[in-house]
C-alpha cells in the first residue's frame, strides 16, 4: 500500500515485501503512538506547580511496574508476527530457488553493467547469446535466474520495481531469481559504493511481453545481426 504508491510493484514477490512493510508500519506505529501519547501527556500534566511535591515511586511497586511488564506482551507478540512474516518473505526471495525458464548473467564492474541474455535457443553460454551493456531485457511472467558476478569491487544489483537487491562479490557467482509481472522500462541501480563512478552506473531494465521479447531476441541475436550484416 505504502511502497507501491511510491514505486510500482513489478515482480511476483514485490507485493509480499510491500505487504510486510505495511504490517510493520502498523505494528510499530501503534506502540509508537501510545508511547508518544503517554510521553506528551505526562509532560503536560506533571508540569511543576508551586507547593506540589513529586510522587516518590521507586519503580519496584507492583502497581506501577506491572504496566511496564504488561507492555512486553504486545511487543513480543508484534515481534513474533514481524519475524514470521519477514522470514517467510526472505525464504521465498533469497533461500528458495524455483525452477527457471531462462537464465541471465549479470556482470558488474567499475562502472557499467554487462548483461548476457540467452539467444533464440534460450540457453545461456552458447554462441547465440545476446550481450548488452546497461540494458537488461526480460519478458513478463517468465521466471528468471540471475547469475551475478563482479569483476573488481563489490557492487549491488538493485532493481527497485522488483524489490530486489543483491551484492555482487568478485570471485563469486551468486544465483537468485525474479519473475516480472508488469511491462515497462525501469531503473537498475548499483546500491553498493564502488568507487568514484558509483553514481554513473545506472542501467535500465526493459520488461516486455513474451511476444515483444521474442522479437527483441530475434533481431538482436548475433546470428540475426550477422545475417543482416552479410546482406
Amino acid at each position, binding site marked *: 500500500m505504502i511502497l507501491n504508491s511510491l514505486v510500482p510493484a513489478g515482480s511476483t514477490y514485490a507485493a509480499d515485501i510491500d505487504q510486510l512493510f505495511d504490517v510493520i508500519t502498523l505494528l510499530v506505529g501503534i506502540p509508537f503512538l501510545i508511547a508518544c501519547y503517554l510521553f506528551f501527556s505526562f509532560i503536560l500534566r506533571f508540569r511543576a506547580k508551586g507547593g506540589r511535591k513529586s510522587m516518590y*515511586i521507586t519503580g519496584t511497586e507492583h502497581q506501577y*511496574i506491572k504496566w511496564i511488564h504488561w507492555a512486553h506482551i504486545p511487543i513480543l507478540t508484534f515481534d513474533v508476527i514481524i519475524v514470521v512474516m519477514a522470514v517467510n518473505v526472505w525464504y521465498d526471495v533469497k533461500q528458495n530457488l524455483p525452477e527457471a525458464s531462462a537464465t541471465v548473467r549479470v556482470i558488474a564492474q567499475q562502472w557499467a553493467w554487462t548483461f548476457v541474455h540467452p539467444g533464440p535457443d534460450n540457453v545461456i553460454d552458447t554462441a547465440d547469446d545476446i550481450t548488452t551493456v546497461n540494458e537488461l531485457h526480460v519478458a513478463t511472467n517468465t521466471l528468471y535466474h540471475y547469475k551475478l558476478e563482479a569483476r573488481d569491487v*563489490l557492487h549491488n544489483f538493485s532493481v527497485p520495481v522488483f524489490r530486489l537487491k543483491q551484492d555482487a562479490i*568478485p570471485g563469486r557467482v551468486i544465483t537468485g531469481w525474479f519473475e516480472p509481472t508488469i511491462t515497462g522500462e525501469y531503473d537498475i541501480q548499483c546500491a553498493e559504493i564502488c568507487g568514484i563512478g558509483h553514481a554513473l552506473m545506472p542501467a535500465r531494465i526493459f520488461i516486455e511481453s513474451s511476444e515483444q521479447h521474442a522479437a527483441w531476441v530475434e533481431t538482436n541475436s548475433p546470428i540475426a545481426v550477422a545475417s543482416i550484416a552479410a546482406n
Partner: protein
Amino acid sequence: MAESIRIEHAAHHDDHHGPHHGHDEMTFSEKFIFPLDHKMIAMQYMFTGMFMAVIGGFFAYVFRMQIAFPGMDVPFFGQVTPAAYNSLVTNHGTIMIFWVAMPVLIAAFGNYLIPLMIGADDMVFPRINRLSYQIFLLSAIIILAAFFVEGGAFGGAWTAYPPLSTKSEYSLTPLGSTFWITAVALEFVAFLLGGINFITTAMNSRAPGMKMWDIPMVVWMIVIASILFMLSVGPLLAGGIMMLFDQNLGTAFFDPDRGGDPILWQHLFWFFGHPEVYVVLLPAVGIVAEIITVFSRKKLFGYKTVLYTAIGTGVLSFTVWAHHQFIAGIDPRMANVFTVTTLLISVPIAEMMFVYIATLYGGSITLSTPMLWALSFIFEFLIGGITGIFLGASGNDIYMHDTYFVLAHFHYTFYPIAIIGTYAGFTFWFPKMFGKMMNDTLGKIHFWLTIIPFNTIFLPLFVLGAAGHHRRIFDYRNFPELDYPWMWDLQHLATYSLIVMLLAQIIFFYNVITSWLSGPPAGKNPWSSNTLEWTTTSPPPHGNWPEGLPTCYRGPYEYSHPDRKSSDYWPQNEPA
C-alpha cells in the same frame, strides 16, 4: 629543616607519579597542554570533539548542497567532483562516529563525570589518560591530513568494504586509504586506554559508602559502554591491521583473487560496528537519566531495571551484527537467526524508553534547556528505534538496504545520541564545568532551531528511501525514476533545513562564550541535584574536594523522598 625538605620532596614526588592535590604552581603547559587532571583532559576531548563536529557538519553541508543542487558551485567549497563527494560522505560518517560521538560521549563525559560522581580525586591512571588523549589527537590529525595528500582522502564509505578500500587501482586514493585505516586504528587504541581507566576508576575509587546500586546511572552506562567497546574492538583492530597489510605489504586477507575473502572484513567490522552503536548510546541514555530525574524531581523509575536493560541490550548487541549484511552474499539461512536476535533488541530498548517515560509520571517537570534536550532525546530516539524494526526484518531489508531509509533511521539514532545527548549533558553540567550559568533563553532558541530542522532533514529522507533513493549517489539525475520534481522538493527541504540547523549552532557557541565570560555565577548546586559532583565548588579545583573526599550515604535519585521534610532533594553525601 631536614623534615620539611623531606615533606617537600615527598610532595614533589607525588606530583610526578599521581594526580596533583591542590597544587597551584603548575605551569601553563602542565595545566592545559599536558594535563593529568581528569577535568582538563575531559575538556580537551570535549573541544576536540566539537571542533571535529564542526568539520563533519561542514562536510554534510557540502554534499547535501551537491545532492540537492547537482553541479552547482557550493559556496565556501566550489565544484564537488565525484571523488570529493565520496570522500566527504565517507569522512563525514567516520568523523561523526569516531571523532565526535566517541570522544564527547565516552571520553569527555566519562573523564569529567566518573571521578566527580563517585567522589574520587582523579582517575586511577592519570598518565594513561593523558596518553589516551594524545593518541586520539594524533589520530584526528591523521584523518584530516588525508585531505591534503596526493589522491585525496579515502572515499569508500565509512564501512570501508574491500576490495575497494584495499586496492588503490579501484579506490584511486593510495595514501588516503592508508591514512584512513591508520587513523581509525589509532583512535581505537586511544579509547582502549581510556576504557581501562573508566572501568578501573569506577570499580575501585568510589567514595566510602557508595555501593553498586548507589552509583549514578551515567557512570554505570559509561562503564558498561567501555566494557562493550573493549570486548568488541579487538576483532576490528585486528581487521584494521590486516587491511593495512593488504594495502601496503601485499598480503591478501581480503583479496578474492588470491584466496582472501572480502566478506571477512564485513564480519569483523560489524562485529564491532553494532556494539559500537550501544557504546555511544549508553552514555547518552545515562546523561538523560540524570537530567530527567533532576528536572522532574523524581526518583528514577526502576534503577535496576534500567541497568539490566542496558546490560541486556549490550549482550544482545553482540549477536546482531550480520543484519548489516543480509544481502551481502552471506549464507541466506543466517539472515533468519539475525532477524530474530535483532528484533529481540526491541524488548530491552522499549523497556528502557518506557521506564524513562514512567519516570516523568507524577513528577514536577521544569522545562529547562537541559530538560528539553533530554526529553527530545527520548522522542527522537523512539523514532530511530521503531524504524530499525523495518530494517531488522530481513524480508523488508531486501528492498530497504542501502537506501535513504537506512540513512534516516541511523541518523534518528546517532543524532539523538551524539548531538542531542551531548547538548543535554553539556548544558546540564556547564555550571559545574565553568562555574557560570548559561543563558536559558538563548539555550531554548538554539534547542528549537536545532530540533525542528533535524526532523525536517531526515523525515523527508525516509520517504525518499522508501521511493528507492539509494545512498552515496552524487547526482540523482542519472536515474530517471529518482528524478521526479516532488523528490527534488524533498531533497531541497532537507538541504535548507540542514543549513538552518548548522547556522543555529552559532547561537550555541555564542552562548557558551558569553556565558563563560560573563554569565551569572552558578554556585555549587544550581539544579538542586543529589549527586556528588554538585557538592564541590564550580568549577571543581584540582583534586576535586581539597577539604577531603565525600562519603556517600544513599542512592543518587532520592528526590521528593517522603522522609525528607526540609527540601525535595537529598544529596548523596548528607548523613541521615
